[in-house]
């Protein structure tokens, strides 16, 4: 059995604690193993039972999300989720966080985040067709932010651009709660013929296990446990654990894997992500209900003198693990050789349900697979509603500003609203020749070329993927349940603006320390809200990721980020290419509001930015009218009668209207009679609304297309000013400058 290696440390309480295992967790391991674990095993337990790999605080909550539906092919649990696109095609997608590594080394942290999510998708046989990213930084005037943003953006671009996967959208927000803990969430979607999806399963006793890709170094050892710890003053020492990415190697891996997947060799395949060789082999055995034996000496190593502990826990990037059919090894190796990659047989599938590793002839680990997977600890952590919410959710007396134009101008320059082209100009968003709606719109639209994946659209027209990432942390902070529900609605609304029907969503749940009941309550409530909205809107959750412990300790105060359940939604549009314009295309168009007038002040960016208040309840979603609005928007897109649509979100009606004018064609509108406050009418963030513009002669057609959805005629396009009768009258040029200059000014 396990014998001590010269490099092993004696197992004592201190070492167990250092590995992040609780007493009760360690006791459980002792009981199941019937002995003290070896040093190598302790390392493995530590990473497999870390929050990052085991989802021990979140598992019971995630189980409540709706994950099934007529379009779901693969739900959570695999490397990524998959939805049916019809005509034999599937979209495979997932979002993942790389927050902690990015804070420590922004370029490499963000780059390897992109690399990791790309592998999750092509592991399943899908060719990645687009990336999104969701970013959170601290205040823009902070020196640390000015260092992080360029690094993160260059890292995301550096990896995705080199791989040749377009980054077509995303969202970026700035808030002081992220000052010491930025968020970098990366999303990838791929397309595959639905009968060619590969899973991460180890099956078939005796089948060889192949390792392919970069050699293993000492990178990121304990990266997975690090991601589950709060940031503190001792963070610096952990720096060498940052991994460096090699997108060129990954491009070769991508092409080689996709080529190999054309053949009938692979039984199961999984990338090595967090906890590297350990988690990939354990999870494959877990899904296959099998065992695995690995000969760690066969693992290609980059450095001298590595120990089995290091080989197993390394997080070197650009590596894959494959189970192939016995007898096909040579064929597999030949395909990898073509791409200058070397595959090594490192083990076999067994039937004893054990995960075994050998090193120089000795067995250094032998643990039952379920101990590391299903039987990993899971907690129902205590929750309590934060007491400060009582006050925060009420709105105090707020003076109404005299000059609402000045408010608008200042909101346009707020970094959350301001032009993000400084960011997406650094991302290749055109490679692939399919990005038909580019960054800067409500959602991106990416074409799937007819026949590109062997599909036949049966005369229904070309397929387009609608893609959007959304999260308003302020709404969630002020009420996690309805705030999160609102984000689901908003994401679907953004898709509707490009005509797409939502098929599924993936999430990346960024929260603070779950051991604190306040935070755990935020988390649990957020999931309740997401579940409710997903059920109401019939959008299943097919994959996701949880990032906890997003907190910073400075002196003796610890502060958590705003709860940030990042969402990315994938939708389908099929038919004639929608003729949409990024801004109002011409003068003389009728501008109208779809949905209720709305005047919800609570939780708005206006309150925060102008009055310094994060107060009030976020706007609530009325599901039937929200869904009716989306149906109407999609009908308008399909009809081709409406050349401009834009949903209302941050900053409400006034900001949306200004955004419509940024192409140079102005607008002159009048708000309908209302008893509501003017600032609430202009800047309130009620859900369920969009503005549209169309030829006045088309009014009857528009009305016929939108059914019962309320339509308010606001005014006409034209001129070079944004005029909201009696309230705002500003030249577009001034608004445009405010909007355009913020990011370059702070970041260049």
């Amino acid at each position, binding site marked *: 059995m396990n014998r001590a290696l010269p490099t092993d440390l004696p197992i004592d309480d201190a070492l167990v604690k250092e590995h992040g295992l609780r007493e009760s967790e360690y006791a459980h391991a002792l009981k199941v193993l019937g002995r003290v674990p070896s040093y190598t095993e302790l390392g493995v337990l530590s990473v497999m039972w870390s929050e990052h790999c085991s989802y021990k605080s979140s598992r019971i909550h995630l189980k409540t999300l709706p994950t099934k539906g007529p379009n779901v092919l693969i739900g959570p649990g695999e490397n990524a989720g998959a939805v049916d696109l019809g005509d034999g095609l599937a979209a495979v997608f997932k979002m993942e966080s790389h927050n902690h590594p990015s804070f420590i080394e922004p370029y490499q942290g963000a780059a390897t985040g992109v690399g990791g999510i790309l592998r999750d998708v092509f592991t399943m046989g899908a060719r990645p067709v687009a990336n999104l990213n969701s970013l959170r930084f601290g205040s823009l005037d902070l020196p640390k932010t000015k260092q992080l943003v360029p690094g993160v953006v*260059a890292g995301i*671009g*550096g990896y995705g*651009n*080199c*791989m*040749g996967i377009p980054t077509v959208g995303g969202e970026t927000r700035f808030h002081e709660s992220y000052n010491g803990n930025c968020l970098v969430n990366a999303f990838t979607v791929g397309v595959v013929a639905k009968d060619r999806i590969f899973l991460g399963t180890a099956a078939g006793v005796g089948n060889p296990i192949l390792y392919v890709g970069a050699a293993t170094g000492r990178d990121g050892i304990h990266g997975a446990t690090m991601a589950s710890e709060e940031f503190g003053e001792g963070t610096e020492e952990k720096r060498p654990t940052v991994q460096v990415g*090699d*997108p*060129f*190697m990954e*491009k*070769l891996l991508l092409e080689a894997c996709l080529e190999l997947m054309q053949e009938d060799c692979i039984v199961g395949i999984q990338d090595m992500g967090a906890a590297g060789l350990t988690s990939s082999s354990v999870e494959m055995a877990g899904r296959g209900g099998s065992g695995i034996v690995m000969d760690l000496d066969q693992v290609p190593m980059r450095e001298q003198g590595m120990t089995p502990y290091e080989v197993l826990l390394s997080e070197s990037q650009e590596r894959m693990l494959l189970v192939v059919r016995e007898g096909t090894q040579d064929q597999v190796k030949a395909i990898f050789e073509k*791409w*200058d990659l070397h595959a090594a047989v490192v083990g076999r599938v067994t039937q004893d349900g054990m995960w075994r590793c050998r090193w120089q002839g000795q067995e250094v680990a032998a643990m039952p697979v379920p101990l590391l997977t299903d039987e990993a600890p899971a907690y129902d952590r205590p929750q309590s509603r934060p007491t400060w919410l009582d006050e925060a959710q009420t709105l105090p007396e707020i003076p109404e500003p005299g000059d609402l134009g000045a408010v608008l101008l200042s909101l346009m320059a707020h970094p959350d609203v301001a032009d993000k082209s400084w960011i*997406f*100009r*650094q*991302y*290749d*968003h*055109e*490679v*692939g*020749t399919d*990005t*038909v709606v*580019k960054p800067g719109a409500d959602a991106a639209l990416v*074409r799937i*070329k007819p026949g590109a994946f062997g599909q036949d659209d049966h005369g229904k027209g070309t397929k387009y993927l609608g893609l959007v990432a959304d999260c308003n942390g302020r709404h969630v902070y002020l009420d996690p349940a309805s705030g999160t529900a609102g984000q689901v609605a908003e994401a679907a609304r953004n898709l509707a603006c490009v005509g797409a029907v939502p098929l599924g969503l993936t999430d990346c749940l960024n929260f603070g320390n779950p051991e604190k009941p306040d935070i755990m309550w935020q988390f649990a409530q957020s999931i309740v809200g997401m579940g409710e909205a997903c059920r109401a809107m019939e959008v299943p959750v097919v994959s996701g990721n949880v990032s906890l412990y997003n907190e910073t300790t400075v002196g003796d105060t610890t502060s958590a980020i705003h709860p940030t359940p990042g969402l990315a939604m994938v939708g389908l549009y099929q038919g004639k*290419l929608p003729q949409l314009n990024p801004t109002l295309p011409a003068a003389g168009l009728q501008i109208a509001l779809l949905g209720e007038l709305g005047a919800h002040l609570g939780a708005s960016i206006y309150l925060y930015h102008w009055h310094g208040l994060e107060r009030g309840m976020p706007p609530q979603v009325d599901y039937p009218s929200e869904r009716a609005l989306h149906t109407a928007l999609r009908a308008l897109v399909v009809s081709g009668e409406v050349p401009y649509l834009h949903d209302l979100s941050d900053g409400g009606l006034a900001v949306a209207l200004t955004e419509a004018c940024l192409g140079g064609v102005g607008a002159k509108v009048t708000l309908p009679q209302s008893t509501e406050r003017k600032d609430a009418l202009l800047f309130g963030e009620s859900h369920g609304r969009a503005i549209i513009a169309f030829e006045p002669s088309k009014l009857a057609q528009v009305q016929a297309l939108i059914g019962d959805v309320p339509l308010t005629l606001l005014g006409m396009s034209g001129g070079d000013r944004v005029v909201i009768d009696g309230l705002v009258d500003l030249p577009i040029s001034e608004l445009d400058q405010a909007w355009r200059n913020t990011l370059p000014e702070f970041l*260049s």
Partner: protein
Amino acid sequence: MAFDVAVLTFPGSNCDADLRWAVNNTPELSARAVWHKETDLGAPDAVLLPGGFSYGDYLRCGAIARFSPIMNAVMEFANSGGPVLGICNGFQVLTEAGLLPGALLSNRDQKFICETVVLGKEGKDTAFTKGLPETLRIPIAHHDGNFFADQDTLDRLEGEGQVLFRYLNAQGERQSGAAPNGSVHDIAGICNAAGNVVGMMPHPERASDPALGSADGRALFSALQGFLEAK
């Protein structure tokens, strides 16, 4: 019989499929993928080098790809007067190979730039540029597209009509410094003295379909078709 257009694939090329698609969308042109490890090009009518990050663009863009086995055949094809077009990384490979003068340095602001630019077409007629409109809207996407050449070379390029594309300002006017990447004389594309080897940083294949916002890039592929037909 369609004309045979060889589109090379180096390890790290990522616009090869896009380029084949654009070629195949051109009447009478048929794209054929050629792997970098080949030594024989076959008998193509034209050779295209795609964009991407060959060998990760480590060391210098295009430096390692230039030594791919297939490149000997490309040099031979070029030296015998065959039409060769390098786009983006392909342009970098051609300069590294010495088939085109000058070099591509990192962008002025040290950032990757992806955006649609306005190009002015000028210079001598080539297989890829004959009959092109005066201005074209085509996207760029690169980190190292900052064209540099010494004064003598520049004088020659300018004097002999070897500057084929220049970055214009947003209004489509010539303006010194209009190049978003810092290129000397705002140069976006050039050809060799004989005019058969062309390199450009902008991606015509990404502007070869109205769905993508511009179809101006199609003109280059149509020009090639016209050139091959007239031959």
